[in-house]
Structures are given as structure tokens and as C-alpha cells.
């Protein structure tokens, strides 16, 4: 049967992988190409790169990184951050990305999701949603790295993105991100139950049980984590073995 996926996430700025807590306080984690190779060796099912470069001057760096990774690592690569128009999608695919993740621009210009999906296929369009709980069982979509409220309901927004042609949803809990207390499982469950397309749970992983809970309780199709892998706490292989022991289908 289909395996649940484990996806290490690399936040990249100025050519380095960094990791922050709730989108601030960045800590250096190393060279992206080296890290990507390491995770591939450990059996990562995919890799996600988020270009968090603030300045547009440095936008070229991510292309060179993706080109290098794609010539050495033969698993799916998702790249996001600063995607504003169809041309950005095209440039990232040409650099070697297999999927492109769209976040803020999906909110400011939903037609971008439709246009990119119809041009390149839904399989390569991931919509990233940053969600924050506003009341029990209710989550609002935030943009601009979590700084800007949109008034949109996360479940309804995810359904709209599916309708416009998103192939997958990358769902990050702003409340949990960087806290190492586990995913927002109620959020994950609410979104995955509402959709036909796969959902990647993100934000808050601090140990291996959190990954397993994302699948077993949250119902996620894939789980994304950054710092537990970057700083050597666990390898991807350990994560998979742990999940397999819990009866979760994984690629070992």
C-alpha cells in the first residue's frame, strides 16, 4: 500500500539552511545541498525548500541550489517562497523543482493557482496554508510569513484551493510552529477530512511520536519537520522505523 511520507523541510536564506522559532530567531543549520544529500541518504521521501530570503536581490540563489540538488538527489523536490506569477513557477520547475508551493500569492491572487495548475498540472502545484486558531474548531489563514490575517477560514480556503487545481495542501499551524509540542492535530484532521487531495502536516514537531500522531490522529498523508532532523536529534530513518513500529506504512 501507499506509504505515508516523511518530508524534511529546509528553510533557505542567503544560501544557508536556517530554522527559526515561530518565524523569528533564525539559527544556522548548514549548507542546503549537503543537507539535502544527507536526508536522501537517510531515506527521505521528498524534500521541501522554502526560500525565506527577504531581499529580491538574493532570489537567484535558490535556483542555483535547486539545480545542484536536482542533479544529485532523485526524489521529489518542492520549492516555495516568493512565488508570485506563473513565470516564477516555470523558473522553479526549470531549475529542477518537481512541485512549487504557493502561499501568500494564492490569497492575493487565487487565479495564479488555477493558471499554474492548468499550465503545468495539479501534480506540481502545492498550496501552503499558514493557519492560526481563532476559536475552538476554527482556524484563520495568515499570510506574509504569518504576520497578516486574512479573515479566511482555513477549511473553506483549503477546499477552494482544491477546486482551483491545487494537487496538495501544505498545512502549517502558526500556533505550533517552532514550539516542539506536536502538530495541531484538530486542525490537521479538520482539513484532511474536508479534502480529496493529500495534506502535509507541518509545524510543531519535537519528537517522533509527534510525527506518528500527525498520521494516526491527524490523518495527514505526509508529515513535514525541520529542526528535529537539522540538529541531529533524529535521522529520517529513525523516524520511519518508529512510525513502522506504530503500524504506519512507510518506505524503509
Amino acid at each position, binding site marked *: *500500500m501507499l506509504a505515508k*511520507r516523511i518530508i524534511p523541510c529546509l528553510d533557505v536564506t542567503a544560501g544557508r539552511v536556517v530554522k527559526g522559532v515561530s518565524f523569528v530567531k533564525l539559527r544556522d543549520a548548514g549548507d542546503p545541498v549537503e543537507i539535502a544529500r544527507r536526508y536522501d541518504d537517510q531515506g527521505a521521501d521528498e524534500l521541501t525548500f522554502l526560500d525565506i530570503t527577504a531581499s529580491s536581490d538574493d532570489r537567484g540563489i535558490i535556483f542555483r541550489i535547486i539545480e545542484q540538488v*536536482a*542533479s544529485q538527489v*532523485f526524489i*521529489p523536490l518542492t520549492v516555495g517562497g516568493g512565488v508570485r506569477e506563473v513565470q516564477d513557477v516555470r523558473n522553479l*520547475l526549470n531549475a529542477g523543482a518537481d512541485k512549487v508551493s504557493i502561499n501568500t500569492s494564492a490569497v492575493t491572487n487565487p487565479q495564479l493557482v488555477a493558471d499554474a495548475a492548468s499550465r503545468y498540472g495539479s501534480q506540481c502545484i502545492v498550496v501552503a496554508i499558514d493557519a492560526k486558531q481563532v476559536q475552538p474548531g476554527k482556524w484563520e489563514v495568515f499570510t506574509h510569513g504569518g504576520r497578516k490575517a486574512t479573515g479566511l477560514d482555513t477549511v473553506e480556503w483549503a477546499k477552494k484551493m482544491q477546486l482551483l487545481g491545487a494537487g496538495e495542501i501544505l498545512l502549517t499551524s502558526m500556533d505550533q510552529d517552532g514550539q516542539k509540542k506536536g502538530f495541531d492535530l484538530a486542525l490537521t484532521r479538520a482539513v484532511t*477530512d474536508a479534502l*480529496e487531495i493529500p495534506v502535509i502536516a507541518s509545524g510543531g514537531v519535537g519528537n517522533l511520536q509527534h510525527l506518528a500522531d500527525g498520521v494516526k490522529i491527524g490523518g495527514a498523508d505526509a508529515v513535514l519537520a525541520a529542526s528535529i532532523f537539522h540538529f541531529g536529534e533524529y535521522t529520517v530513518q529513525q523516524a520511519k522505523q518508529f512510525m513502522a513500529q506504530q503500524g504506519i506504512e512507510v*518506505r524503509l
Partner: protein
Amino acid sequence: MVDIAIVDYGMGNLRSVQQAVHKVAPDASVSVTDDSQVVGDAKRVIFPGQGAMPDCMRELDARGLRQAVLDAARNKPFLGICIGLQMLFEHSAEGNVPGLGVLPGEVVRFASELRDAQGNKLKVPHMGWNQVHHGDHVLWNGIAQDARFYFVHSYYVRPSDVSLVQATSDYPQPFVCAAARDNLFAVQFHPEKSAAAGLHLLQNFINWNPA
């Protein structure tokens, strides 16, 4: 004359395929091409595809590549990938369009509201790493039974001749994920994105000399 032509009919990104081929055959000359002459002259042809089948068929015809692909599929080592498998069949439910008709059978969509044995919802597209139960075709040489390959698709092929089937996978029912006949081999998954198992299959294709 190139060793390997990767047919480019303008649907998405062929760079991954090109890079994976380069990895397993660094000395081979490889051309990503929309030139039917180059496809016609190449020793081997890879026919990838992504996106929606009606668009793929339209773009193939718009570039005048149909005949070159049909000829290659009948007379030289030929590897179809993803939509490149589906397009070989007679008809697709996606957009209700005819395919190339090289192989008998049709392309159908996964049912909605699929559930696994534990009652969990199975998403469509079928996306991720699934086990491949394969036969004894030489392109599987050295690849473990039930090895996992990376899939992303919502439609799958239903050959009307079971002798074409070279592998199946389960979601949750068995579906055909590889078909072959003579000089032709085609897979639903993406060998170029399937880590060691995928590279192995590409290597086997590069070395394949069908009778």
C-alpha cells in the same frame, strides 16, 4: 543521431528525466527534443508526460510528433512514463479523448471516496511511494519484488490484453502500473523520482536490447 531522445511536447518539466538519465548513462548523448526527425533517428526514446491527457494529446499533435512517437513505439527501445504510459492506450476517461492506440485498453479514474482496510480515506491523486508487484521482464532485473516507486496520478490504465501487464500496485484495489510489448515498456510511476529503484530501472532500459 542521439543515443536517447526524450520527447518534449511542451507539457511541463523534463529536466528531472534528463538528469536521471544522465546519472545512469553519463556518456550517452541525450536530447530533450520536439523535433520528430531527432526522435526518428534516436536509438532509444523516452516518452514522459505530466498534466492532463487532453492537453498532452493536443500538444503532441500541435508539434507534429504523433507519427514519430508511433513509429518509435513500434521499432526501437521505448520507455513511457506516467501520462506517457496512458497516452499509448486507446481512450482516456480524462477529458474523454482518444489516445495513440498503440496498446489495447483504456484509461480510467480512481473512484472517489476510496477507503483502506482500516476505513481511512484514500486521497486522489494517488501521490507518494507505493509497492510495485512486478513480473520477470528484464527491465525489472535487480529490482526487489514490492520495491517502492514514486507515483502521482489520478487515472490509471486498464489494458484489455492481460499479457501486456508487467506490474501492478494496490490503491486499495490492484491497478496496472507497468505495461510492455516487444520493444516497448511503460510505467505509471516516475522512475526519475524513485531514488535507487528508479535509477535501476532507467539503467536497465538504457542497457535493454529487445529482440
